[in-house]
């Protein structure tokens, strides 16, 4: 919802970040599948015991990955902006 409102307000950078977060959470459901598969393979716990853990792990992993990507791209943007600012000085020297 926040992503949608930011798009309406034409705050595209914020919109992009919230869409990445939303999609990160959306992909969490796919991440839980291999985790559930691993729990099934090791058979140390019953499905009733590991389902909650697998869901929290799956959603949290992709959520953290999305946050990391947002942070990384923000840093790249700042670095590019700095390089562009410094470039004319280097050319002059």
């Amino acid at each position, binding site marked *: 919802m926040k992503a949608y409102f930011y798009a309406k307000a034409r705050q595209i950078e914020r919109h992009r970040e919230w869409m990445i977060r939303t999609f990160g959470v959306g992909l969490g459901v796919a991440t839980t599948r291999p985790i559930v598969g691993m729990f*099934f393979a090791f058979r140390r716990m019953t499905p009733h*015991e590991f389902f909650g853990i697998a869901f*929290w792990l799956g959603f949290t992993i992709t959520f953290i990955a999305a946050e990391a990507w947002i942070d990384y791209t923000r840093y790249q943007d700042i670095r590019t902006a700095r390089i562009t600012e410094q470039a004319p000085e280097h050319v002059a020297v």
Partner: protein
Amino acid sequence: MSVPKRASRLLWFAVIFLVVIGIAAVTRRSLALVWPHCFSGNAGAAAGLDAGFARQAALTFVHILPGALFLSLAPFQFAPGFRQRHLRLHRAMGTGLVISAVIIGVSALIMSFKMTSAAPTRPPLLRCTPLFF
């Protein structure tokens, strides 16, 4: 936004891999709900899970079909080429994705309370998952 090509490729690979897993899960669940005698698990934990979803078949479909739509359409929203060429479609799809995300969230919340197969040993933890995310 400037990102190294390798990082971007790696991310796209991971996203497509997860989208394929998600759509495969939706397909398998749909088949198990429509033709339980062919696609449901016969014994063990898988059979218990399938039976749990079968008891709430309508609710499960309300949850997983928008989920499949969300997973298959959302990656296009992030493709710069698609966004630049089809801005109107990008906006229309965005509205559709918001609607499907709301349906997914609300149905997940209802499912977590209605479906007993979902980890009865730790209900508070699992039940607050949709609320948290």
